[in-house]
Structure formats: C-alpha cells, structure tokens
C-alpha cells in the first residue's frame, strides 16, 4: 500500500486533491444556476418536459463525456484536466492551446514539466476567454453580431475557424511525424465518407485508435 503511494509525486497528489475539491465546487456552482433562476422567478418547469428534452441530448453528451475523459485526461495533465473540464470548450480551444504550449516549450506531455506547462496554458486560456467574452458581452455585442452575421464580409473567418486552427497546429506534427499522420487522417476521411455527420467526439476516438495502432505497427515493421 505504502509502495503504491510512492508512485505519485507529492505535487501530483496535491494537484489531484485540489482538483477534486475545485471540481466538486464547480458542480455545486453549476447546479446553483438553474436552482437560483427557478427560485428567483418562481418558475419551476414541468419535470416531464425537462425529461423529454434530456432524453434527446443525454445519450450523446454523456457518451461524449466518457470518451472525452478517457481521451483528454492523459494529454492535458492532472491540473490541466481538472481546469479544462470545468472551464469547457476543450476540443476547440483548451486542448489545441495546451498542445501548442507543449510544442513551444519542447516538453513531453507525460513529464512533470509538461504537466506544469499544460496547466498554465489552460489556466491562461480560460482567463483570456472569460475576459474576451465578458468584454464582448458588455461592450461589443451589437458590433460583433454584425461581424459574425452570415452576410458579413468576415463571416468565412469564423465559419472556417477549425480548419485554420487545426491546420496551423497540425503543421508542426506533419513536418516531424508525417509517416504517423497519414494513416489516421486517411482513416478519418474514410469513416466520414460513410458517415459524414459523425460527431467529432466519436471521430476523435476512431482516429486516436488508428493513430496509436498505426504507430505500433510501424514500430514493429521498423518503418520509424
């Protein structure tokens, strides 16, 4: 028992302790929002209606939550995981932001240095996002509505933000590990060919398995 405890450094232990407390706190804060709204406006909804709506979204989003926890936790580090799951927007912001920071700092995600860099990156990203949304909401909302309107000149910039983001992020990996990159991209395209609207959470799981499986096979065949 004592031996098992030694496996994790005191820093990791304290991050997990703090992370659990903060996450449970966040759960309380999150649930307090609908409770406070219903109490304040004396407007408790029909639970039957809420259930009808939830039945449509829960299987997708709770399933995605399981996949996301399994996929992102090993990559974001302990502190990064606790922070990212509370602050949200993991796929389109926190995860690529942490990957970029790890790449810049030239540290491995599974090292303690990687843990530190990933946590700082996700924390800064959360604060900057919160600030931008707050400033936007308070000051620029009429202007931004026009900017992102489908008829606006700037609309394509926001419509194609994900190809821009992952193209820029993927370039470094493509350059260094092009052999590893070809197979999972190909698998992703083939899967989309048969199921073009497949949710990105599920697609990530498929390409991740293809990428790691492909890497194992290439190492066995001594291609890399």
């Amino acid at each position, binding site marked *: 028992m004592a031996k098992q405890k030694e496996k994790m450094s005191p820093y990791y232990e304290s991050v*997990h302790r703090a992370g659990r407390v903060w996450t449970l706190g966040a759960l309380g804060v999150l649930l307090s929002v609908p409770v406070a709204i219903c109490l304040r406006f004396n407007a*408790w909804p029909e639970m039957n209606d809420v259930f009808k709506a939830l039945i449509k979204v829960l299987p997708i989003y709770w399933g995605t939550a399981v996949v996301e926890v399994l996929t992102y936790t090993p990559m974001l580090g302990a502190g990064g995981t606790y922070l990212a799951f509370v602050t949200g927007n993991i796929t389109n912001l926190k995860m690529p932001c942490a990957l970029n920071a790890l790449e810049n700092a030239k540290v491995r995600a599974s090292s303690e240095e990687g843990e530190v860099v990933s946590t700082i990156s*996700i924390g800064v990203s959360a604060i900057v996002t919160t600030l931008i949304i707050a400033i936007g909401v308070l000051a620029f909302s009429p202007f931004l509505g026009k900017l992102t309107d489908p008829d606006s000149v700037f609309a394509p910039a926001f419509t194609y933000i994900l190809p821009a983001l992952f193209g820029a992020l993927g370039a470094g990996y493509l350059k260094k590990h092009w052999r590893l990159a070809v197979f999972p991209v190909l698998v992703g395209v083939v899967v*989309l060919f048969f199921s073009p609207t497949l949710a990105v959470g599920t697609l990530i799981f498929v390409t991740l398995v293809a990428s790691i499986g492909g890497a194992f096979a290439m190492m066995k065949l001594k291609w890399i």
Partner: protein
Amino acid sequence: MDFKESPFMYGLAAFVIGFVVIESVFFIVKAWKRGRQLGLTKETLKNTVVSSAVFSVAPALSILTTVIVLASALGIVLPWIRLSVIGNLAYETVASESMLEVMGSSLSTPITEPKQFGAVAWVMTLGTTFALILVPIFCKGIHKKVGHVVSKNEKTSKMADVLSAAAFIGIIAAFIARAIYGKTPDGVGDAGFMSIATLVTAVVVSFLLELLCEKRDLKKLQPFAMPLAMFIAMGTAVVLNLVLPDKVTAFTWWNQM
C-alpha cells in the same frame, strides 16, 4: 426590464465567472511555482502565458459569437454563464433548441416565460454535469496508469515519444479529416473548397513561419507562429470569399454547383 437580463442574472454571472477565474489563478500559481522548482526558466513560463493568451483570442471570439447567437432567444446573460463554465459551442445550442422544441418554441423566438427559461437552464446544466462527476473519480487513476506505462517505457524512450506524438496526431487528424470530408448538421462550414483552402493555407503558412524562425533565428516569433498562421488562414478565407466567384467558394462535396 427583461427578466433574462435583470441585475439578478448579472449577479449570477459574476458569481460563476468569479469562481472560474479564481480556480484558474489557483492552478496557474501552483504550476508556476512547481515549474520554477523543476528548473523551467522564467522565459519558458512567460512564453507559455503569452502564446496561450494570443492563441485563445480567435476561438474566444468564436465562442462570443455563439453567446450572441443564443442571446436573441435566451438573453445575453444565460449563454454568457454557460459558455464561461463547462459549456461548448455545439452543446448549448442543441440543448436549448431541444428544450424549446418540447415546449413548442424555438431559438428563433425570444423566451418570454420564466418557466421556459428555467427549463432551458436545467437542460443545459444537466447535460454537461456528467464529466464533472467522472473527472474527480477517474482522473487520478488514469494518470497513475499513464505514469506507469511511461516510466516502463523510459528504457525505450523512443517508443514513449512516438506514442505520445501519435496520440496528439490522432486528435488533430479528426479535425483535418473533417475539413477534408466532413458535413455539419446545419450545413454551415461543410467540407469543400473553402475548408480545404483554409486548411492548406494554415499548414503552408505554419511551415513558412517555422522556416523563417529557424533561418533567421527569430526565437521571439516562435510562440506567435501558430496563432499567426491561424489568423492568416482565417483572413485568407475572407479574401477568397471576396475575390473568387460564388460557384467556387460555395463548392462542397454535398453541394456541387
């Protein structure tokens, strides 16, 4: 005054957002101290802060867009709260639309009944709470397993490096594949000429910037190379949409003009 944008709602937003900011500061300070103990230089840590801040600007604007889109039906405060904590672009829209559908309404009509408003708040919240239950239970165990595998593999550190890179590539590959042949449920941003042109621009500009940094030894440009490539690719999407005929820019695999 519209109850959806009352001082009470703004107070609620301040409470939730305050929590997120304090939690973020707590973890940043903790990680910074540990980083210094591990020997990471102040410059490395500062670069992490600056590049992460710059990196977050464009996606944050995109999230702000969702807040504004949802604001027409839900008021600005509830989407603001939801997208500052745990929420994400796709989920909030789908969850609120599902609830409003059940109540015979839709996101294109402003909510006037507090009961509808409360119902939407519940569906948005309950759909996303599951991850917050899973993380405290499984995060430590997953890390222990990963640490164990990595320490075993340190004897063959090449394998650990390759698998770590393969894991990142696996995630990025999903988005690259979607830009090449993906379809969105609402048809906005389907794969086709524009998505592929934006993707290719981002990759090429990244290569060029990296080459420039290497050749000219521009270490200070390095942290900005990735966000810069992203902004240039976004700008290219705007320019292409302006200068090319609609026939070309509207081309998608499902809408061949």
